[in-house]
């Protein structure tokens, strides 16, 4: 019998376990960066000048949401609505408000989130006038014209008598966007191709601009109803997770190297399994132990 001895088997296994993570870690997207450390925000800021920058001196935050439940958003910030008019948050946040940070030209998840919000508003048990929805583009390159173009796609899902000002489609300049996203702890990242990787999250604010709750992912009408009820009471509540908490450009080439590692790994396993099976089947029937009573 030419079987590997247990000691050798164990040694091989240990060697594999030690080598694999190093290999895998070195093959992350981009290849040359150190992926053990959180993404370097300074570099991105210098390169794209568009992300929610952490305040100077504060440790950089990883992509995602750093929840600030109970804190206030700066209501003096000024944005432009879909008609190109300047509006301050104070003008808008005069009742329980749902804030959805997205960008209108998003090729993937944002349109889904906006449609979700429209559907949730349509099915909501709350009176339309009792709350307000704000979709805010965090892409400073987007203009009111783009927002105006996006708007009918979603308002078409709502009732015909839905008041125009109950859902604002905002765009803004870099500073205002950075201040607001920082205030809600929303950290996103711009890719080289102009798309963004960002958390998909709906933020409920009360009439004073206090952050009441975060609802992640594919929220439903019930989530919105409960968030609005809590916002009306003004009591900060714990966040809710739903499926798919991130919106990201679907680009399979981006993680090609990781997929290659997986492909090679499964290939090696299949070949090893095949060899093992071949060796097993090659044994003569007479070698097999006798079973049964």
């Amino acid at each position, binding site marked *: 019998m030419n079987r590997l001895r247990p000691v050798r088997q164990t040694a091989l296994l240990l060697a594999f376990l030690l080598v694999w*993570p190093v290999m*895998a*870690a070195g093959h*992350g*997207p*981009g290849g040359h960066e150190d*992926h*053990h450390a959180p*993404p370097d925000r300074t570099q991105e800021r210098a390169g794209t000048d568009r992300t929610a920058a952490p305040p100077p001196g504060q440790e950089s935050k*990883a*992509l*995602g949401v750093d929840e600030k439940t109970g804190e206030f958003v700066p209501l003096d910030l000024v944005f432009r609505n879909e008609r190109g008019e300047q509006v301050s948050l104070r003008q808008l946040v005069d009742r329980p408000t749902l804030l959805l940070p997205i960008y209108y030209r998003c090729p*993937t*998840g944002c349109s*889904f989130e906006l449609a979700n919000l429209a559907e949730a508003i349509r*099915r909501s*048990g709350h009176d339309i006038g009792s709350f307000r929805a704000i979709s805010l583009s965090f892409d400073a390159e987007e203009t009111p014209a783009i927002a105006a173009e996006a708007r009918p796609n979603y308002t078409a899902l709502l009732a015909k008598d839905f008041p125009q000002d109950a859902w604002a489609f905002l765009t803004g300049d870099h500073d205002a966007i950075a201040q607001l996203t920082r205030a809600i702890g929303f950290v996103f*990242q711009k890719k080289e191709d102009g798309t963004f*990787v960002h958390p998909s999250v709906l933020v409920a604010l009360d009439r004073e601009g206090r952050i009441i709750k975060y609802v*992640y992912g*594919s929220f*439903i*009408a*019930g*989530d919105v*109803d*409960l968030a609005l*009820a809590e916002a009306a009471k003004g009591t900060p*509540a*714990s966040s*809710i*997770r*739903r*499926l*798919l*908490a*991130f919106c*990201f450009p*679907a680009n*399979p080439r*981006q*993680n090609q190297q*990781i997929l290659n590692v997986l492909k090679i790994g499964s290939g090696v396993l299949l070949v090893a399994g095949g060899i093992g099976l071949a060796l097993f089947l090659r044994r003569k029937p007479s070698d097999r132990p006798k*079973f*049964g*009573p």
Partner: protein
Amino acid sequence: MTMATIPSFFETPAPAGLTGIRAWLLTHDHKRLGLMYLWAVLFWFAVAMIIGLLIRIELMTMGRTIMSAGVYNSAFTLHGVIMIFLFVIPGIPAIFGNFFLPIQLGTDDVFFPRLNLFSWYLYILGGVLAIVSLFTAGGFPDTGWTFYVPFSIGTKHNVPLTVFAAFVLGMSSMLTGLNFITTVHRKRAPDMGWMQIPLFTWSLYATAWVQLLATPVISITLLLVIAERLLNIGLFDPARGGDPILYQHLFWMYSHPAVYVMILPGMGVVSEIIPTFSRKAIFGYKAIVFSSMGIAIAGSLVWAHHMYTSGMSDTAIFVFSLLTFLVAIPTAVKVFSWVSTLYKASIDMSPPLLYALVFIYLFSVGGLTGLVLGAAGTNIHVHDTHFVVAHFHFTMFGGTGFAFFAALHYWWPKMFGLMYNFRRAYIAATLATVGFLFHYVPMFVLGLMGMPRRYYDYLPQFAHGNGLAAVGAILLVAGIVLMFVNLLLSFRSRVPAPANPWGGCTLEWTVPSPPPLHNFPLQPSIQEYPYDFTEILRKAPRS
């Protein structure tokens, strides 16, 4: 009868010479291992049931009743993880499969008795790890039993340890599956052909293949999650170019087939009980066999129907929706076969049959509401609401849970050689069923009304439904407690059970209750057809 004089497996340790607790902890005997699983599984079931009751009490009234939102999140995760990984998946195969699969095949033990013991230790280790993760490093994860990344990757809680616990448990059930497959292939009684294998064993065989082929996927996925969290590789994290949908595919590639791992053995139990108490050959033996294999195969191809809302392509949604409907066919074949068996049969009512009938009813409701969720169009309206929770509990609890109770009542006399009180058993079953309906039917309505799941609080319009559900939950728990008390009281009343108390015709009813160490003192004779009641009816005094 000379057979009755042979000492039972309780009196004969294996390996010989072991005494006291060691005779249990080091045993290779499949029957002792089955009982060791029984007590361990029942312990976890009790824990998760109490947590479930606490969740329900929290939802009894609006606002905070007994726990905060954070504790509630941990409670439903813990309830889900324990119920799924420590009760539903291992329940029937590990307890009744271990005990009865070798006996139904006419052999003395499983193919790898030591591996069987090892699986039990893995099961215990996995359970302990899950509990340890509760008390270490920032508390229990609040991700639900699906451990969805990237949230799992971002959360500060102790996900790696819990995920590792799930991995260890997956390994345990995979090894049990391996044992069953090899036993069926290599250790059947020499003159038992494939179409003479009892249906319970067939269902375990189909299940074992799913376990063997699907569990490595979740094991690898969970290892990747651990690697991702500890080494930041970038597999699932979009910030590093990873793809969260990849995780969902991998997770459901295991977890959807696992749903059939959970239900198939339950269907096997019912396929044993229905013919026994109908005194009649099961309708469509071969159809049931092939539908078991059909469910195992088709069930492995429908995983992505859990991901309709995650942004898949329309073609993929269409294909998975269609495949999902296909699974309904073999399932319906089984239900129709059971009902046809009962048709014009001389039915003998007994507690196991009552549980089996309740199973058929509850499982059918669960299956039909599954179609609502399986169809992409209707899914959009009810996903993430209490409708999903109700459907899931109808199939997993009304299905597997009640099949488990049926199996417990059917084989209890064989396992312990003791009969239990029928009257109390009927009361308990009725109480549990009524409680079940009052508990979960309001959840369907609440879901259709739009009540989202995973909240410790709700809006005023959902108050009535939740109040009703709380009453149902209390009745349900009362029924289950009474059921266990009744079974345990049989140890005190010690009414001995005959070898064949029900008039069953599979091989376990030909050996003494409880069986001797090697199961069969003589080579058993195999009936040409496993559900041939001619001999039983000829001997029966009533007929």
